[in-house]
């Protein structure tokens, strides 16, 4: 039973600030994923949690105990590394038991029993007598997981554990990790640069950039209500389209189009930042964000009402399940996820409709979101209404 609290945690390497004062509460039994681009400080945060790096400032509290200056071995956490970190000269069994035997906290019977249980949980009984070089990547990572769970730690810390596996195996291991977490219920902090992994595994996801936390939320909330432009563009593939607009009378005005912002007339709104409804000032500049899947060809939905925009197709990318169109709306580049097998060629001009419930506006300077066309609280009802409309 472990809750972990980070308070104003900082880590500097000489003049580089890797972690820039983050506050985070990890609740007991939670599967928390930290995601971000390379160098955003996510791995450093994990290593600070493990005690492998000394914090420059701030504190780490586990279950009410300040562990900021506590040795790694006394934190009772287990770490799983990207490169598995198996001792190459030891068999699977010895890899799993080496730490326990060295620490001297366990009797031989207890070790045997725990290895047996872990082997059963992870289905690695036949790997115990093999050395790592005789195992595949997936098998090695299973043994590494076995080594982590056998000590029954207070928390698992996983540093990109699936990154060295091939795509197919990664998806399989992802499901197994989720299953493992369900059965063990141990607090898990998982670091990845892969947003798909973050979305599928995390009960909550922390998005980091430049050593700071950009947003912490459940995966769907993160996707639907990004707190800022960075999160909006980082989460989701292909990334959200960003179009520069001016706000005039509750309408987003671009060189090539003007679309009304639903609910903006009431003078709204920002659920995502948690600072309540804020009137949208007329005449302010903004960046309009629309996800590629929320744009579609007007011909695909003849019954949909509302504005349409004209776009010129630059490149087409057939993805099998959809057709990705790289277009230009006026001067602005824009991606559209259209239905597959459409007969569209580069150079064509297409008419585009959009989902009015899925519009976002960001401040062009700070990047903070100040408008989502669908509010957080009413998201379910509006989504249902939108579904009926389709």
């Amino acid at each position, binding site marked *: 039973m472990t809750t972990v609290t980070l308070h104003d945690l900082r880590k500097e390497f000489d003049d580089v600030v890797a972690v820039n004062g983050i506050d985070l509460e990890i609740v007991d039994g939670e599967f928390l994923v930290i995601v971000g681009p390379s160098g955003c400080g996510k791995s450093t945060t994990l290593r600070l949690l*493990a*005690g*492998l790096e000394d914090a420059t400032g701030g504190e780490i509290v586990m279950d009410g105990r300040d562990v900021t200056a506590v*040795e*790694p*071995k*006394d934190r009772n*956490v*287990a*770490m799983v*590394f990207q*490169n598995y*970190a198996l*001792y*190459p*000269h030891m068999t699977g069994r010895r890899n799993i038991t*080496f*730490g*326990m035997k*060295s*620490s001297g*906290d366990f009797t031989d019977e207890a070790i045997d029993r725990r290895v047996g249980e872990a082997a059963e949980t992870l289905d690695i009984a036949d790997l115990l007598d093999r050395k790592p*070089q005789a195992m595949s990547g997936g098998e090695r990572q299973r043994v590494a997981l076995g*080594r982590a769970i056998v*000590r029954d730690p207070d928390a698992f810390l996983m540093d990109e554990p699936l990154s060295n596996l091939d795509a197919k195996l990664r998806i399989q291991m992802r499901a197994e990790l989720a299953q493992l977490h369900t059965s063990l219920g141990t607090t898990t902090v998982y670091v990845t640069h892969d947003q798909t992994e973050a979305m599928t595994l995390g009960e909550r996801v922390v998005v980091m950039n430049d050593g700071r936390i950009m947003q912490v939320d459940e995966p769907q909330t993160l996707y639907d209500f990004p707190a800022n432009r960075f999160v909006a563009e980082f989460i989701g593939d292909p990334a959200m389209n960003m179009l520069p607009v001016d706000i005039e009378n509750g309408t987003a005005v671009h060189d090539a189009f003007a679309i009304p912002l639903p609910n903006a007339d009431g003078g709204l709104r920002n659920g995502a930042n948690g600072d309540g409804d804020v009137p949208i000032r007329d005449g302010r500049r903004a960046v309009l964000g629309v996800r590629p899947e929320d744009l579609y060809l007007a011909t695909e939905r003849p019954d949909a009402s509302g504005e349409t925009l004209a776009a010129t197709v630059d490149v087409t990318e057939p993805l099998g399940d959809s057709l990705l169109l790289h277009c230009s709306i006026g001067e602005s580049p824009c991606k559209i996820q259209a239905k597959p097998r459409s007969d569209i060629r580069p150079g064509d001009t297409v008419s585009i409709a959009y989902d009015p419930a899925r519009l976002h506006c960001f401040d062009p300077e700070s990047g903070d979101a100040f408008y989502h066309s669908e509010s957080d609280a009413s998201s379910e009802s509006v989504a249902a209404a939108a579904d009926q409309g389709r």
Partner: protein
Amino acid sequence: MSTREIFDSRIESALLLLPTLLVSVVFLYYPTALAFRTSFFDSSFGRAEVFVGLENYVGLVTSSGYHRSIVISVVFAAVVVVGVVVVSLYLTFLIHEVDTGQGLYLISVIWPYALPPAVGALVFLFITHPTLGVLTGPIESLGVEVDWFNNGSQAFVVVALAAIWKQIGYNVIFMIAAMNNVPDTLTETAELDGVGGLRRLVSVYVPIMTPTIFFLVVINTIYAFFGTFAFVDLLTSGGPSNATNILIFNLYQEGFSFFNFGVASAKSVVLFVVVGVLMFVQFRITDRYSYYGG
């Protein structure tokens, strides 16, 4: 054949190889062959060589003094090799673990290796001289009388220590490279598991470093048999009472003090065979325990 021709013609590559071949043949293979031949002759200055067959070897086989020299050499080599590897490993580990000033520690450990053996021997002589030595006072204050000019066992220890001290730098250079090659995540995993420092060295680092350590054991063995001549010559001259008369010094005396070239050649052949056999055994044993990655 390689798919890529580096040189324009065979003559060019042959010409480039020639200097190396020439030096090897003139200073290595020809003297070796000549020594092998001389070992069957009675040979010295100012008289004609006389073929004596195996007489020189028979003389060695029946000489108790020579038997003792072989035993001393093997024990000396064992002490030096084990001493060098163990001390170097521990020093390497300390340097590896230290956070600041690594370069300074590394240089101070390596510098004895940069000295010529003769200078090293003289330095050690001043450190441990029975009456003038810097360390003699402190050691005698522990209740040990330093008298290695007369005490054979002490002389053996002093020469072995000097030989170990001189060779540590060479070993540390290779060991620090090998230890730095151990992935950090293994160290970190051990730290998280609460594996103590020495146990980490013995159970994690050393097994992964085995190829390097094996290489160093071979090099150190050759060093102990051949490269320690200067220490024996300058510190003890093989004495007292032949307590430090290792094979390489023994054969030097035979050849260049007594000018019995035939016997000295036979001794060098025996030394070659002894070291060769030891190498073979080392290869057989260490190959089984070496971890070559994968």
